[in-house]
């Protein structure tokens, strides 16, 4: 099906098979492999992307549903070679180890920042990460990164 969408700031017109999940479109057809698949039950959040600014698990969305939507993946956050403040905060606070859950965590962090600005408490951040699993970090530094990244976005 012909589908028009904006992907990482670029307008695209794509012919997409109706049963294609967004995550498969991104990874297999568009070579945007920063969005990951970590489960088959929509629990790990490694496939998070922003759809019209809202974090969505891209394993739960059919790509053809996105006609007219604006999609941002992890590849679309840095600009002019500079990390987005949320990405920079993950590096600064050692919020990643193996990096597999990281794109989904960064996107989840952006969604938390969107809803709370820089004011979310650590408890709130931890609770709102319930849809994202990480097996390496123990989360403490991820929470610190999102706390700092949200504040940096507010100050920017």
């Amino acid at each position, binding site marked *: 099906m012909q589908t028009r969408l904006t992907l990482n700031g670029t307008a695209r017109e794509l012919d997409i098979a109706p049963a294609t999940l967004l995550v498969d479109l991104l*990874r*297999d057809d568009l*070579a*945007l*492999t*920063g*969005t*990951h*698949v*970590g*489960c*088959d*039950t929509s*629990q*790990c959040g*490694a496939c998070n992307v922003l759809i019209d600014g809202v974090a969505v698990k891209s394993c739960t969305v059919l790509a053809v549903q996105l006609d007219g939507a604006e999609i941002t*993946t*992890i*590849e679309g*956050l*840095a600009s002019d070679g500079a*990390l987005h403040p949320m*990405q920079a905060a*993950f*590096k*600064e606070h*050692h919020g*990643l*180890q*193996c*990096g*597999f*859950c*990281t*794109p989904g965590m*960064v996107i989840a962090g952006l969604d938390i920042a969107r809803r709370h600005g820089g004011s979310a408490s650590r*408890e709130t*951040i*931890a*609770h709102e*990460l*319930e849809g*994202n*699993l*990480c*097996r*390496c*970090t*123990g*989360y*403490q*530094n*991820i*929470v610190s990164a999102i706390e700092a990244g949200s504040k940096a976005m507010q100050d920017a």
Partner: protein
Amino acid sequence: MKFGGHSVKRIEDERLLTGQGRYTDDIQLPGMAYGVTLRSPYGHARVAAIDTAAARAMPGVLAVYTAADVASYGGIPCIVPLSKVPTPRPLLVDTVRFVGDGIAFVVAETREAARAAADAIEVDFDELPAIASIDEAIADGAPPIWPEAGSNDLFLWSKGDAAAVDAAIAGAAHVTRLRIVQNRVAPTSMEVRAAVAEWDADAGFTLHAGSQGVAGMRAQLANAILKIAPEQVRVVTGDVGGGFGMKSFVYAEYALVMIAARDLGRPVKWTGDRSDAFQTDTHGRAMVTDGTLALDADGKFLALKAETWSDLGAYQSTFGPAIQTMAGGTIIGGVYRIPAIHNAVHGVITNTAPVDAYRGAGRPESAYTMERLVEAAAREVGLPVDEIRRRNLLRPDELPHANGLGLTFDVGNYPAVLDKAVQQSDWAGFAARKAEAARRGRRYGRGLCYYVEIAGGGGTEEFADIRVAADGRVEAAVGTQSNGQGHETAYSQVLADKLGIDIERISIVQGDTVRLDQGHGTGGSRSLVWGGGACLVAADELIERGKALAATDLDATDIDYEEGVFRARGTNRSTSLAELAAKHPQALDGRGRYTIPKPSPSWPNGCHVAEVELDPATGMVKVARYSIVDDFGVLMNPMLVEGQVHGGVAQGLGQVLLENIVYGEGAQLLTGSFMDYGIPRADDMPHIEFDTLGTPSPNNPLGAKGCGEAGTIGAMPSIMNAIIDALDGTQIEMPATPEKLWRVCRELAVSRAA
């Protein structure tokens, strides 16, 4: 040092944060086909008939393999055969021995076509009696899963002085006995295993797969399974999304994609889904232990006796039989003064997924057994849990100390680490916190653990292959393999200090047998000690080669090297690393081998203090406070070390509170997805207070001790001991689920009322 000892930010992060990481499933090759494994839905059955005709006829299907088609290849070897009976794990089977055992491998143009064709394969099974647990496996009259063994109890390993232990127990003032269950858990790397193979008539095979070391994987694939020369196999590992021991091993699909790639003359990819992972990744722990600790009237330990039944799963995995025996069974007494000690381990076969190394690989299990016994004993004899440890921990003046099971602890200051941890945890404030919780109707408990780990044990060598480009940039290929720990950063720090050049002029390469075909990978908290040692040797040898070249170029006898520059002593003549590299291409390059005469581990140790709050009305428990002091010797990068500890604690906490692999009737896997198997989420974790009190390790030039597994080792016993304390000493087993805790709380309330 300019870099060593500092929390240098990670070199890896830029690519991983921008989606530029390269995990195995990210690889797309022209003409690539896709494989899917058809797995057994039964725990134990014979394949009476298998009909693949319909599958082969389906659109896009390129090949279908069954056990008969791959019978000429070797199985996945167990390299520590404690059992005289081999239990080879074939690539595909015609007798299935656990749910998930591979029956057929389908290759098609697309993943969807391969899946559809796998569904179209018709299999008739003759069910056999399936054994889901240790108890069933060793029960009288249990049918042996491997008939040639005659029993499911495949071996008995033991170490120590049984007679001395029995005599000490018989004469002891107090004896504490516990039966301790360590539940089966799934390593659950966020990246599920995947493999991509290519074949070329001249170059042979290239396998891309997540691993914990390419050289070892190549040797097993080539020698044991495909039966070809190792030179015919290139193994490449890119970014690895977590391994935790589980990715050390060869899995059937790695060989199957290679076989299919050669047969079809095109690349073949297999990517597991989470269900494949729960069914077929190696599991961890899975054991029952009868532990006995004997004490004198002063609470001093007289003897430790343990007998363990270790569930190996249906096949003896690569290191499986070693985990509770040679790998972890020798450290069961911790760093306590125990005059008599004996440990016996049975290796038990069941119709379950193979069990092997999982974060700590036997050391968490040993520490868990000991530390549960220590706190049970303290309660029974009326000693505070810190005091009983103070009376029994080895003092610095007692080191080195032979532990009676073949290990010798070299250095450390265990009582000082204990005291620092106790102080850091606000030990004195516990009573007030407990009273405050009680006012809110909550139970509150505290648990402690003093652990020691064998880190980097076993091997005697590691490699680093160093090259200098014409612009002076230094590239080192290391024989270890990061699974997310940040090795590129840590090794760059080692080399930047050693060579006196900026860290940005160094790059670290891993995971390609064409670049470096030697090395022992990551595992057992070994990498910095061994890989760092190899980097130092390679850099030293590089400097020596540079001095020789500079002596000629500068027409001098004595050359000094400092900060990237070689100088003729007593003159103003000099040449840089870059100039030498440009003038003498490859003459600076070389491979360094770091080796020591006999295996000599480092002994990380430390103290964890956990406090938990338990709501008796719901059984919900929360780790309220968590405090750690570790001795990791000299730290290369404190930030990375603390990150390792955080993650380790999460995996220990997960096992204690949430995680449990369950096989039910017919050895059916009941926990095959994240719907049924809980791993910790962000709000399950406490804030972790972390500090170190390091005694440098004398066994390596960096003075480092391994830190990768310590968090898990300390977390399991400390959190469980805290829960047991909150239950007034009622012994319960992991996982401490709300239901289990609620029932105990009700019983305690009833008995208190009565």
